[in-house]
């Protein structure tokens, strides 16, 4: 093994430099205010959790978890997402105090990278969880909150794509002959392999009516702007009725422009039982975030209610948003060693007026430092020069 260099960091770990730090803080401020006035309370959970509770239940693949051991030999994980820890807190404590719960977070999560070294293995995520409301209004609220939050942050071009696990399951079961076939097709949709889907349908040797229906479904159901277009594939059921109501609520909220439907949308986690969605924005090649209803996860924690929420990757937001223009005025006060008292006085006054003021011993300054400040004041031992 090659030796580790002094300046090296573990794979996928990044430093955050001042400019990006400021940009992140700005997003955090906007988000915090935006969510708080909508009744969401921010919470924090530990970075390290038990593998048996959080790691296993999390939506993140096992291979991406950072695992470690505590001194009693228990396996621990660095939290790979925030949803599972929040459900842990909610089911053990908070739900007993208040239902429904509206919780929000802005936290770093950890996912080990297998390929290409530079991708972040630790990044910030923000999101909300609405726990204890099983009605369609909760899902509508979550989607509306996601859209309006992105608007508040300053994003213009983005789309939310909504699907429903129940409707997909219904289509796959109705048009195949066995549960294995349905599972195989679902697997291919998780990978977004539409070619593989068509090949699999052909290989199943289904009755023509069924295979034709599946072929047409895969061609049409990935991109629907209107919900009615799916109705010919699905027999009347609760899931369809649910989606109708959801679409209607989003219409009432005047958010239909940001939404389209994809009923092939599928997640590798089985606890997404109802509607689920993904968030995309121009400017990044990767999805910005995702969300959905995950009643199944609550059941795993022994709570018989429902929850819905979303998470947005802050690192991808940073990629899309321009750097904020800084309006503050920076002042540099340089002093000769003998004039420290006078310089300190001067600095205090400037800071009280709201200027960002740096106090610096003149003898240590290199020339280029001046260029970084709007105003430079030099306090010499004889008096003051600007």
């Amino acid at each position, binding site marked *: 093994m090659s030796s580790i260099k002094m300046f090296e960091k573990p794979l996928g770990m990044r430093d955050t430099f001042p400019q990006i730090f400021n940009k992140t803080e700005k997003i955090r401020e906007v988000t915090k205010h935006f969510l708080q006035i909508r009744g969401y309370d921010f919470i924090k959970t530990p970075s390290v959790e038990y593998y048996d509770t959080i790691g296993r239940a999390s939506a993140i693949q096992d291979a991406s978890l950072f695992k470690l051991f505590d001194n009693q030999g228990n396996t621990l994980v660095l939290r790979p997402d925030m949803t599972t820890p929040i459900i842990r807190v909610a089911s053990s404590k908070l739900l007993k105090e208040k239902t429904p719960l509206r919780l929000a977070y802005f936290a770093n999560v950890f996912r080990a990278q297998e390929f290409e070294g530079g991708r972040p293995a630790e990044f910030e995520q923000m999101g909300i969880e609405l726990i204890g409301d099983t009605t369609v209004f909760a899902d509508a609220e979550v989607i509306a909150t996601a859209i309006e939050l992105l608007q508040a942050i300053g994003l213009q071009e983005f*789309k939310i794509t909504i699907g429903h696990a129940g409707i997909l399951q219904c289509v796959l079961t109705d048009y195949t002959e066995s549960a294995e076939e349905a599972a195989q097709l679902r697997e291919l949709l998780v990978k*977004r*392999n539409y*070619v593989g889907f068509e090949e699999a349908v052909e290989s199943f040797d289904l009755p023509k009516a069924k295979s034709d229906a599946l072929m047409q479904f895969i061609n049409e159901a990935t*991109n629907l702007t209107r919900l009615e277009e799916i109705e010919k594939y699905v027999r009347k059921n609760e899931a369809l009725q649910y989606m109708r109501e959801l679409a209607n609520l989003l219409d009432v909220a005047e958010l239909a422009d940001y939404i*389209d439907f994809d009923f092939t949308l599928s997640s590798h986690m089985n606890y997404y039982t109802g509607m689920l969605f993904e968030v*995309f924005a121009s400017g990044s*090649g*990767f*999805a910005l975030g995702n969300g959905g209803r995950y009643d199944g996860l609550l059941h795993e924690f022994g709570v018989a209610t429902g929850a819905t929420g979303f998470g947005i990757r802050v690192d991808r937001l940073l990629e899309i948003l321009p750097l904020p223009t800084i309006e503050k005025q920076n002042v540099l006060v340089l002093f000769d060693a003998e004039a420290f008292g006078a310089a300190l006085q001067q600095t205090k006054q400037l800071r009280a007026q709201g200027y960002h003021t740096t106090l610096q011993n003149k003898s240590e300054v290199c020339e280029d430092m001046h260029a970084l400040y709007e105003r430079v004041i030099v306090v010499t031992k004889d008096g003051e020069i600007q």
Partner: protein
Amino acid sequence: MSELTIAMPKGRIFEEAYQMLIEAGFNLPAEVEMSRKLMIEIPEEHIRFILAKPMDVPVYVEHGVADIGIAGKDVLLEQQREVHELLDLKISSCYIASAGLPQTTMDEVAPRIATKYPHIAMKYYKGIGEQVEIIELNGSIELAPMIGLADRIVDIVSTGRTLKENGLVEYEHIADISSRLIANPVSYRMKASRILDLAARLKQTVKEND
């Protein structure tokens, strides 16, 4: 109309796919001056082609610098990138197979497999419960069994001529390969109408050529 960036592999696949786009009714110049250019702009159709190494096409598409691309299934299987696989173009069809010297059995302890596709080879032999050692090579794979570097090779076979000329025979068929139309997940949503239109027209062309 939004601009569409298409990543294409250089060489023969580019020419075939380009021809298909013309057949699908895209207004592209019949002759395109290839020379050493890496980017071709088609202002009439708001399309820009970028010409990349075949192995790199999914990289451009995954990162979203190209909205869609044309990539071999071999590359997609090998790299497992986050892209949507939209359409089988049914061009440059071939398959991946294992091959070796005639009438040889694999070494019993840990047979060596030379290949350009370490991931595909590993997955295949894992799947059939065979313990093997994978040796990654970048070309002239056929050399490996001939000089005793490996028991088997895993490589693309189109006509089988290269194998024959080097005295090798095919053993196992691993996967069918052809060129696929792939899309970046974000572009697939944000430029949905353009990408779906292109995919539908190409699909029609594939059907007609079949």
